[in-house]
């Protein structure tokens, strides 16, 4: 079905490839130019440092009037990301704006890795762990990073 790809998506894709942001890569799939394979490097100073996290990102027909669908494929110990990789981030839901882009979404997710927010959790058990024993939670997060996100 895929009618002509909107020029906005073409432009965004070109820019993602030609001017990549540090620690972020997004490449469209060959057979579906609305599906992107994403990799985010764990930010320096976070428990995810050293890890490379794979995500998938899909632009629906409504994009940019509706947010892209993003999900972690690599397992991660994070209070705002559940075991299915779903992400609790306002701009991916009610705070979406068509002025946002793939790149701004990925930067926000990178930011979320640097600053976990246990007060707005998606994975309740991880959030509880984070609130009660932040040091222990960080240790677990590091262990998961070593176990699942090392290339």
């Amino acid at each position, binding site marked *: 079905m895929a*009618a002509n790809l909107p*020029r906005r998506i073409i432009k965004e894709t070109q820019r993602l490839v030609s001017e990549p942001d540090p620690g972020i890569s997004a490449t469209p799939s060959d057979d579906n130019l609305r599906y992107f394979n994403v990799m985010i490097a764990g930010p320096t100073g976070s428990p995810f440092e050293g890890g490379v996290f794979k995500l998938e990102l899909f632009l629906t027909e409504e994009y940019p009037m509706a947010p892209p669908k993003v999900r972690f494929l690599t397992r991660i110990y994070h209070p705002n990301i559940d075991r299915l990789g779903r992400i609790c981030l306002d701009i991916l839901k009610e705070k979406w704006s068509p002025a946002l882009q793939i790149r701004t979404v990925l930067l926000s997710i990178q930011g979320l890795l640097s600053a976990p927010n246990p007060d707005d959790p998606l994975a309740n058990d991880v959030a509880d762990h984070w609130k009660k024993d932040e040091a222990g939670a960080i240790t677990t997060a590091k262990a998961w990073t070593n176990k699942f996100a090392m290339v």
Partner: protein
Amino acid sequence: MLLKVLTGDEVVRNAGSAPTFNLLGPNTTVQGITPNLFSRVNQSDPLFTLTSGFSATSVRSFEGNVAMDYGQSRDLDGPTLDDLVCEEKDIEEYKCPICMQILQSPRQCKNGHLYCALCIQKSLDKRAECPQCRVPLNLSELAKSLVAEKHLRALKVHCKYYLMREESKKPAHNAEVNWIVDPEGCQETFTQEEAERHESKCGYAPDLCMFGANCRVRKMTVEEHRDACPYRTITCDHCKKEIKLVSLEDHNVKCPEIVIHCELCQAEMKRGHLREHRRQQCPEEDIPCAYSEQGCDAQVKRKQMPRHMEESAASHLARVSQHLSQQLFQMSEDFKQSLKARDDKIRSLERALADQNFDIDWKMKNWSSLKKKSYLQSGEFELAGLKWYMGIYPNGDLPDARGHISLFLFLSSNCRGQKVGLRFSLRIMNHRNPNTKIVQNGFRANFPLVERPEEQVSKGWGAKRFTPCDEITEANGYLKDDLLFIQASITVCNIRWEVETANTSIVGYW
């Protein structure tokens, strides 16, 4: 078009915006509440159109554009403004953050964030806020931006015939049209405001090849193309037929009017005559001997044929003789076979007919009145390929049979042939008791079928005194409701036929 609904807000907005940025269509004259304030309204301003209740079709066509892509081009098929703009500097500020292309009919929020009119309308449908600063916003709060419009009008752009479509190698379903610089395209640049006027007259605009071919023709080269197109029609100098120039080479090796040489005898002739020449005249052509059917295998050049005929006359004669006798033998064999087949067929038909018994019923109503006649005859019936009938004399056929019924079986007089042997009986049936019928049995007769005028041979067989007339009464059971029931029971024993020579032609068999 008549403008029906206008809010005061819109009047002010439109009044202030003239002259408007004309990108898509011609200006539309509006007869409104205050014509002096805004005598010209730009039809290409989609929000204006959508909110002012223009015809439904125009609204739908805009929605169609929106569904396809947020950014619009001057025309749906052509390159977009982004493809054509000359100076990239300063242009980033005039790009819509939603479609990421140069603003079309710019609109701004209270804080001055700019969007294409259609893009922001689509966004406000989802969420009533500015996508950039999230200040609460609705359709009526959107404002035009004179600065942006002025900047866009003054934008330096290329003519759209500066670019050409890049042939995409990707599969058609995700083929995006890519526009690349046409090395032979229009080099003119002008402000965006002047674009439409130029492009409507631009000589680089594509045009159709007048010969229906897929040639790349431009408006300014149409006339030259008439005499340059490889698909133009020309007349063949030889056969005078109209052909396409590109097919001339093909035609030249087929044209029947072109003079060529026979490759055997080198004689000159039109190509169309070559076949006939080779078949009838060419002295160098190998032809078979006229006696090939009689077995002469010689294949010599036409010019040498007379010599061959002379040299081989004796052998040809021998061949013809042999051939003829073979044919005669074959014919007589064929004839014998076909005769035998016919004989067999006749015999099988005879066998099929022999010993077959036929019963023919003749029921006579109103016997009491019929019997006053001297002779009564049944209808004809067919048997063994011949026609027959029965005849009854209620009071005898001749004086010596008076007081008796005479009953005969007759052969219809117009039958021809040799002889038919019959065994038959004639009966008068008893209605009450079938076993007491009156029977005259044991007729055996050879009906001669050849007319012999000198012999007065009767063609009827039966009994002169079949039964006394007074036997036939209701009381005896031979009449019922005045109905007399006669039955002939016939067995064909033997048929002999004579056939004449059929009138067939065997002329030309030799």
